[in-house]
């Protein structure tokens, strides 16, 4: 049982977010930070116990297409209150980090909330995975690695991802030796609708050449 909130385990410095590169999504980074913080909260102080939970919920919504126009202002307001008045260093710190993240990368937040896009291609709701027909060799490594059975295709056929089934876990990207797996945001590559023989995809017209 934790009765004190003296643990100060989440010492992510604001430097980390200030110096972040394009591969880091600010919103996702913030969400992870608050998910961690809510699990570490001792529960005594409302600003930490409910504040981290509330902020986590709002950010999660933002990553799941459920963000609302007022959310950014709300996050800022809550973080300000938390930063100044929370009972422990940890809660004040995560709130301060969030304020920096919002101030520095406001555009990124706006993209998530208004345009439902994640520029860093991290937030799963805003990305999709595709198999580039030009690169795919029909080796089946990716379809075997998929836990959801979302990749169709057999040996020698260009594999195709069923976007309905895909959970966007990214496991397939790790096994492909041909650089055929691609993560996409708003602009998606052209792919066949169902598996066709390797080498038979016409990229230019987007139309498939039929055999026989």
């Amino acid at each position, binding site marked *: 049982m934790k009765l004190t909130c003296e643990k100060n385990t989440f010492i992510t410095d604001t430097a980390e977010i200030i110096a972040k590169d394009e591969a880091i999504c600010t919103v996702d980074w913030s969400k992870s930070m608050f998910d961690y913080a809510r*699990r570490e909260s001792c529960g*005594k102080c409302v600003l930490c116990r409910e504040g981290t939970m509330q902020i986590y919920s709002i950010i999660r919504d933002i990553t799941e297409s459920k963000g609302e126009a007022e959310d950014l202002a709300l996050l800022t307001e809550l973080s300000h*209150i938390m930063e100044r008045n929370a009972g422990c260093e940890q809660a004040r710190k995560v709130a301060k980090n969030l304020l920096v993240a919002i101030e520095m990368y406001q555009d990124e937040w706006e993209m998530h909330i208004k345009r439902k896009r994640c520029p860093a291609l991290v937030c799963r709701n805003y990305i999709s995975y595709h198999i580039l027909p030009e690169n795919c060799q029909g080796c089946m490594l990716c379809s075997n690695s998929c836990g959801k059975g979302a990749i169709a295709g057999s040996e020698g056929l260009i594999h195709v991802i069923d976007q309905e089934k895909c959970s966007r876990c990214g496991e397939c990207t790790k096994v492909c030796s041909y650089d055929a797996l691609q993560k996409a945001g708003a602009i998606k590559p052209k792919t066949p609708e169902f598996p066709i023989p390797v080498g038979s995809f016409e990229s230019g017209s987007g139309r498939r050449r039929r055999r026989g």
Partner: protein
Amino acid sequence: MEKVHLTVNGMQIAARESQTVLQAALNADIYIPHLCFHPDLTPQGGCKLCVVEIEGVEGAVTSCTTPVQDGMVIKTKSEHLSHLRAVALELLLACHPADCTSCPVYLNCELQAVTQYLGVAHSRLRKIDKKNIKINNNNPLIVREMERCIQCGRCIRACLDIRNVGILQYNQKDGEIYVGTEADLPLKDADCRFCGACVEVCPTGALRDKEGIFSKESPREKSLIPCSDSCPVGTDIPTYIRFALAGQYSEAVGVIREKIPFPLSLGYVCNHKCETACRREKLNSPISVRNLKRFAVENDKTEIWKSKAQQKMAATGKQVAVIGAGPAGLTAAFYLTKKGHTVTVYEKLPIAGGMMAVGIPAYRLPNEIIDNEMEFIKDIGVEIITNTAIKSAEELKNSGYDAVLIAVGAHMGRSLPVVGTGQKRVYTAVDFLRKISLQEEIDIGEKIAVIGGGNVAFDCARTVVRLHGKTVELICLEPRDAMLADQEETSQGAEEGIIIHNSQAILKIEEAQDGPTGVKHIDVKKFSFGQDGRLEIEPIEGSERVTTADTIIVAAGQSPKIARDFGVELDRANRIIVNNETLATSKTGIFAAGDAIYGTKSVVEAVASGRKAASSIDHYLGGNGDISEILIERQLPNGKMGKKENFAKEERQSPAILAEAARINCFCKVDLGLDEEQAAKEAGRCLQCDLRVGISKVKFWGDYTYK
């Protein structure tokens, strides 16, 4: 204690050095919103509602955790503070149901009140539905509806700080924080002491007492202690149980004696409403209060209450006559004597004690116990004149008494229409028991039938068993599981060889020249009482049979035996009509108490009635009517009961019972009482409901002058 001075919202207030800013302000009748603060608990500073601004200190500080300092200048209201409070409250409300009106504590909820005060609405924040609120929500005595919990931690602190039990804590599961027990064990398995402190301090409707545990008729302070509340004389039961636990038996007796002049008799025969009301009943089984009382009295070596109990007020010169030396009359005589009046008790029978002596058989209440308790009453100056029947209360009063109390009991046994009375070897229960008790000549045969199924029927049947070589059968209307007698009476009676015929209606008594030969009865399918109170029976045709018996005893209730020319107004059931408040009869200066006014109840009811009569008569004679007394000075009980392993599973201790072979054919006492180890165990089972009364009541914002 050093005094300090501070300024709150421009007002000068004084405070003790040890106080916090919040305590100082609330003491000065200045309201600062708060929720996780409770006057009896260590402050946590968690709800943030009590924030204030202090001159020279940056930002807002929680006033509940800030000690006062001389010269502090404090502001409790500002735009910034309002905003902070509103956000904190909104965060709490985000995980709390929005609909107040369906909540059992609607309009009696601290959260609702402070929400109203701060003007905050359920709102713009995300609704948080915690998943862990359903854990461990089915417990005895305590309702836990954790969807209403705001995790203020007051229950956690009450359990730890003021009870030293500490089984509640903040739990974490799946990123949610909730209040629970270690490993989410049910309260019973977590070694909860079920003291109710957590319920008492809960500011919302999350923790509540289960419906029906506390009486709604008494004021809250009383109803919280169901044993004392249900006791007709209001004995301070938790206190004497606590003394008994500490081995301070004499102190325990002193506490009992504050209300009862016959503690040992009642330790044997009280019908213990306290045990029926005991909260522990809902956990496993009630505290054996009566046995603890008996144990305390039988192990009181020092009688430290005695000199105080013997104190009398200066003589008033008033003369009071009491008619009837039963528990009601003697109780009244005892207290009237202590109030300085001269009391003479007239008893018709050759011995004093009333139904305790001639109604309750000696194997349940040995005669020497009544005699000993009587001695104490005589010692303080009550004169008891036996063998003296009074013909008229009015004449007695006119013979030189300032007041008369009629406490003649209910000594006329009722019979059944089909049985009648007065035949040879047909007796009512009261007559039979009285004759046996007084060792009078009585004509009984060899095979006895007792008609009736209550405790008195068993008193008769079990008395017969003790009269060498007689057999007895008991015939009663109720089925076995609905018999009116206590369970221990039916089971012990059966052990002693009493044959019990259940669900029987009596048709007639078979008679020959020299007395009855049997009872004709019939199986009853069901029975009920009609609107006019008449018994309606549905018999099973053709099931008539005869139980042979040469002697019949009818235990069908009893009523007062008062002649119409006794001098007071009687009702149809021959009971004396009195004013319920004063117990005054239709004749000035004549009062009545006990069974004579309400029919048959119990010894403890008679004591209660006697006390009431004493108070009323003292008042009538010019006194203040106050017969309350403190024989044992109380210390504030130590509420820090601590955790006790398997507390909820501790079983009620049963007294040793004399073996059947040893108890038939003699009037030796059957119930041998608890031994010291059992008494300690039993006293240790008490939930100590009285501790809850000692928890401070919270005030709402409307109660403060400056808000």
